[in-house]
């Protein structure tokens, strides 16, 4: 059982209306120091694929085909505890 985390965000340069609105809200709550705020997705699951490389290949394919929208989003993933 591999524990998988996928991180998805709008491509840089694309407008992130949610992020902009949230940043303003935080500011008006007194958190002035917040910049470059982006809101993305965090997807976690377990994958029944003991072989590390196979698991990695499969996760990448999931991201490209379904989890992320290649037109406007970019993704990262992490298997078990390893860094993104």
């Amino acid at each position, binding site marked *: 059982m591999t524990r998988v985390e996928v991180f998805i965000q709008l491509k840089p*340069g694309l*407008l992130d209306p949610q992020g902009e609105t949230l940043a303003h809200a935080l500011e008006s709550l007194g958190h002035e120091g917040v910049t470059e705020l982006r809101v993305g997705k965090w997807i976690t699951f377990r994958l029944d694929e003991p072989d590390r490389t196979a698991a990695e290949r499969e996760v990448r394919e999931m991201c490209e*085909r379904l989890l992320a929208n290649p037109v406007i989003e970019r993704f990262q993933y992490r298997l078990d505890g390893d860094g993104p």
Partner: protein
Amino acid sequence: MTTALAERPVTEGDVAAHGLTPSEYERIVELLGREPGLTELGVFSLMWSEHCGYKYSRARLAELPTEGPQVLQGPGENAGAVDVGDGLAVVFKMESHNHPSAVEPYQGAATGVGGILRDVFTMGARPIALLDSLRFGDLDDPHVRYLFRNVVRGVGDYGNCVGVPTVGGEVVFDDAYRGNPLVNAMCVGILRHEELTGASAGDPGNAVYVLGSATGRDGIHGASLLASTELGDDTVESRPTVQVGDPFTEKLLLEATLELIARDVVSGIQDMGAAGLTSSSSEMASRAGAGIEIDVTRVPRREPGMTAYEVLLSESQERMLISADAVNEPELMEVAARWDLPCTRVGRVTDDGVWRIVEGDSVVCEIPVRALTEEVPRYVREVDPPAYVAAVQAAMPDPAELAAIDPWAALETLLAAPTIASKRWVWEQYDHTVRASTVAAPGADAAIVRIRGTDRGLALVVDGNGRWVYCDPRRGGALAVAEAARNLAAVGARPLAITDCLNFGNPEKDGVYWQFVEAIRGIAEACHALDTPVVSGNVSFYNESSRGAIHPTPTIGMVGVVDLEHAILPGRGGPGDLVLLAGAEGTHLGASSLLREILGRTAGLPPEVDLQAERRLGDAVRELAGADLVRSAHDLSDGGLSVAAAELLFAHPAGIGLDLELPSGADPVKTLFGEDGARILLVVAPEREAVVTRRLSDHGLPVRIAGRLTGTPVFRVPGLGERPRPDLEALWEGTIPRIMQRTESSR
């Protein structure tokens, strides 16, 4: 000051890369009296693109009737305006967002809705309704399902958030649209005559402001590259230019804009849509016969390091360009601040007729305004019908093949065809009740929204049949207008005017150009005959993919008025009521849904249009409605009498059934599935049958008793047998939800 000429000289390669022909380039040099700079070249390539400059369509569009006593504002402004009495006017327009939706269906559809909303509220009108006209490939294709789901989500999320009800529309599925879906959105707004505002820069000396979102690199070259070229496999390349919509900011822009106009703070205001700052500023100046000067360094940016070129061409959404007397600046800023919207002074209106762009203290562009807006090259040519037409028209199946069709199997197949099946799956995702004014919701032949403060409503519909236009563009164009008018008649409404969205392939190809010319002819003829001038519209060319051009698809958005007390609403009446067929018997199967869905063929000629009959039918039904002689109605369209009767039945409570009678000796297939126009089914009380029949005859219309509503949920055709209503209804209601449960693919 340094000038544009400081940029490196333009090469032949640059000219080609900007999609300009050598002769167009010569014309530019002539107009400028010098070689353009690179930025200027980019500006010309946009403003002279079909999308902004209408270089292929303008001359032909002139054939459309645009005048009438009811017209307050015809084509030329952001939207058209028509008088609806009581000092009120309805403002409306339809626009396409096809290529952006093909590239990114959710954002493409959402920003399409955003753009058409802005076109309406910049006129000073409060948007009160949206409609959408959609075309996709075959739903069995996983990618088509992906496009369909996300386009519908995009249309819904945007309109729902802004708070404008989406009250009607249409969806057609045909392989002809597989590589290139169509997403047309129509917005309808209302205002008092005196609030009608234009997008003119006004007097020289006015200050120019940008209101709304900061400018990013969104959609650079979107208008020209996406809308003025075919979608090829390299479409992927245009993907980084995807625009993301922000309906929340749009809602703030809407309120701020209407407040500014009500307070008379601005002299002109325009959406920064296709070609962004470039087209909005040059068009505003052009309308005022003035010049304009803008300093791009003052335009608020979302990203660092943007060039003047990028700022000029950016298509970032939710931005407005405003021209106002500088003395109003404090009030302008106050309103903007209250709605939390950035507002920045970026330039001024001048009297030299020049479109001047400066970056700090250097001049980037210096172009006569008219060169960008009036001197656009116009191409007119005479072309012959393409070869396919004769072939398709001749390809009717032989009578034996038609006679072999089993009517029940055919009806079941038609009811389960996604194009004909219920679109509930779509409109249940659209807020169609916000504003608490929706009298006839999606599901009716035309939507009705009440006009607050009056006892009348607006009746709204969009219609278009690309298959018919493909088989005979002229007839198909006229039939689209006729069907829209018939849909309004079926709710008791009187048509006032139309907007159109002309979706075609590449006009540089003779065959496509011919379709365009012929279709406009047909639309013009119908608009003359039905007295519905064209007050606004949009042309979308280059709807092609590696698989060729789409079916030529003009979609017609028609607006009418109805006296709410006498509106005809679906589902009224009950067992014992008669179903009358107003109009002739069906016989015509050419280019019909039957051939398409049962024989898998697009063949033959579409039905003939009898515009006088359509007009008489509309007058007669409105007269009957006014006298409360009709309980409910449904017009005949896709699938003919049998499908219309089934849909009429499904609008009634579950316990109701219907007996449908065929004239003795009639050919069942032709009678049940013929798609001849000028026909409406009327539900009337038995005791009214005589007077209704007489009144219809007085209008010179054939009429017969086509059946009656019964108290048992069965659909019966004496002589042919019967089917339980629930079985047929399950096919009609269940098809799209069932198909949409299957897996999808984003590629």
